[in-house]
């Protein structure tokens, strides 16, 4: 007879006997775990729906104007600053980025679509990967490539859109994948077009919002110290500067944390009440020779068993639901994230049972003597 079976003797028989009781607590655990998985997937999905353009960029750091609060759209950099920065990193490791949030309309329709213009050097590292159609280059005129979510608006290759701010018309020549910024699809254009939609500039000099860098921490610090009027921030910090990103992820994260705390408390209270109910029984078991460790293992086994079964069921439910969700729903639960959440859930469950374990260890076998109940 191996040790595992011995632990299960009491635990499994109790499950079998008090089916309803454990089924109900299991159901609560399933619902909580389900919500944990779902909100986690939603947080991840929203995060990429919000900021996939930045997340997929092959850049490590961004240079922004000083005191721009980490926000691309508040930052303005000049050609001179680009040259200053390039003294520290190579030309290939730094590239300018223009960002402008705007509203466009499909030609011949008055329906408005929010979007974000990204002005990039098509020969630089920010050039997006194409999913369909043709790329633009630095000299094409009036041509743009757009995120494929534009297809949902009835646009296709060859369609024309009009920028509401500048009144300029563009022709779509290609579609990109996973390019969104602040929940809007990104429209990539070259700097020639960028100049044409900017308010007229007296010196006729190129201006842009940020510089993307491929650099290590040392170089980044160096640039921040030596180039005037700039902040250098890592990609993660830049994500937080996207309008709404921090707030959105923050509130979802708070929900997830609370769900974990609730799960821990539900299990803790349930097992604590059951343990208190069984004090006399544990006293008898100890009197007839059961060790504290055997009883503690029984409880731990029950907690883990309940949690694992609940997790498996809720994971199946989560993936089942996500399969029938519409594609436009931002939901992304990777197996890694799911297992991470599950691991945390188990840890939290065990933490919740510690109070009961403590009570069980403290029970004195002598309580079994001279008691009538």
């Amino acid at each position, binding site marked *: 007879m191996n040790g595992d079976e*011995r632990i299960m003797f009491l635990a499994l028989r109790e499950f*079998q006997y008090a089916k309803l009781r454990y089924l109900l607590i299991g159901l609560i655990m399933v619902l909580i775990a389900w919500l944990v998985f779902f909100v986690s997937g939603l947080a991840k999905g929203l995060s990429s729906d919000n900021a996939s353009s930045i997340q997929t960029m092959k850049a490590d750091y961004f240079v922004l104007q000083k005191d721009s609060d980490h926000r691309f759209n508040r930052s303005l950099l000049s050609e001179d600053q680009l040259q200053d920065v390039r003294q520290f990193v190579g030309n290939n490791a730094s590239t300018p980025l223009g960002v402008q949030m705007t509203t466009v309309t499909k030609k011949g329709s008055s329906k408005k679509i929010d979007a974000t213009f990204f002005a990039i050097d098509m020969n630089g590292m920010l050039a997006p990967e194409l999913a369909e159609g043709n790329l633009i280059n630095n000299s094409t005129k009036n041509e743009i490539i757009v995120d494929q979510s534009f297809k949902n608006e009835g646009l296709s290759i060859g369609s024309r859109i009009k920028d509401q701010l500048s009144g300029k018309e563009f022709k779509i020549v290609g579609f990109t994948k996973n390019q969104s910024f602040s929940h809007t699809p990104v429209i990539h254009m070259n700097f020639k077009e960028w100049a044409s939609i900017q308010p007229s500039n007296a010196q006729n000099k190129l201006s842009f919002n940020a510089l993307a860098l491929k650099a290590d921490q040392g170089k980044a610090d160096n640039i921040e110290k030596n180039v005037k009027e700039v902040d250098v921030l890592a990609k993660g910090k830049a994500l937080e500067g996207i309008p709404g990103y921090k707030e959105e992820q923050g509130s979802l994260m708070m929900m997830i944390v609370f769900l974990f705390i609730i799960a821990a408390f539900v299990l803790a209270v349930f097992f604590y009440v059951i343990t208190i109910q069984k004090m006399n029984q544990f006293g008898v078991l100890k009197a007839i020779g059961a060790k504290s460790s055997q009883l503690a293992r029984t409880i731990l086994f029950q907690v883990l068993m309940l949690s694992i079964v609940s997790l498996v069921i809720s994971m199946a439910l989560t993936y089942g639901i996500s399969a029938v969700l519409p594609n436009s729903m931002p939901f992304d639960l990777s197996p890694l994230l799911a297992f991470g959440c599950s691991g945390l859930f188990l840890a939290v469950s065990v933490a919740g049972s510690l109070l009961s374990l403590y009570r069980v260890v403290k029970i004195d076998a002598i309580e079994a003597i*001279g008691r009538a109940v």
Partner: protein
Amino acid sequence: MEYKLVLDNISKVFGDGDTSVKVLDHVSLHVKAGEFVALVGPSGSGKSTFLSIAGALLSPSSGRIILGGEEINDLSPKQMNRIRMEKIGFIFQSSNLIPYLTVRDQLLLIPELAGTLNEKAEKRADDLLKRLGLAHRKNNYPESLSGGERQRVAIARAWMNDPEIILADEPTASLDSERGRAVVQMLADEVKLRDKAAIMVTHDRRMLDLCDRVVFIEDGKLLEQTKRMSL
């Protein structure tokens, strides 16, 4: 003469200094193999403490206890646990069966906890159930048993580890006298049959004639009395 249990000059003091209470005062008792001893006394006389010390649940303040040839008065809690598991059978008030185990599993729990569950143990459980007239109840839960049946299961459970001594704490408290008598009779028969010893704490004087010896306890002192009641 072989003694199953020897309590030699046992004292038990709770608390210390001015607030100390002497619950047992130089108590000695020898129980022979095959002997069934009744322990009678008013509440607060030290019955429970006596039983707890004899049952290796509590260590005495002074004195020696020899159970089945092994001295157990100075053991660690862990060793006392082992002694209880291997050498002592307990029968508690109102049986104290585990509600979620079937009658047969109540018995198998004992070897299960000791890590000795095998076919032999299962056969032992089945034999005990048959002897105590519970074979037809072996798949029932305690809730569906009568009070007498529950105490018989408790007796069977107490024999499962083949103990040197059975300690019974008012086993008839929740039974009417007819059923109570049947249960005690069964206990007495088993003690004789197996040549083991038993001590039963009781306040029910109608059961005393089934015992070989009656010991009175009052204010922590034992007053031995040879059997004089007879029917």
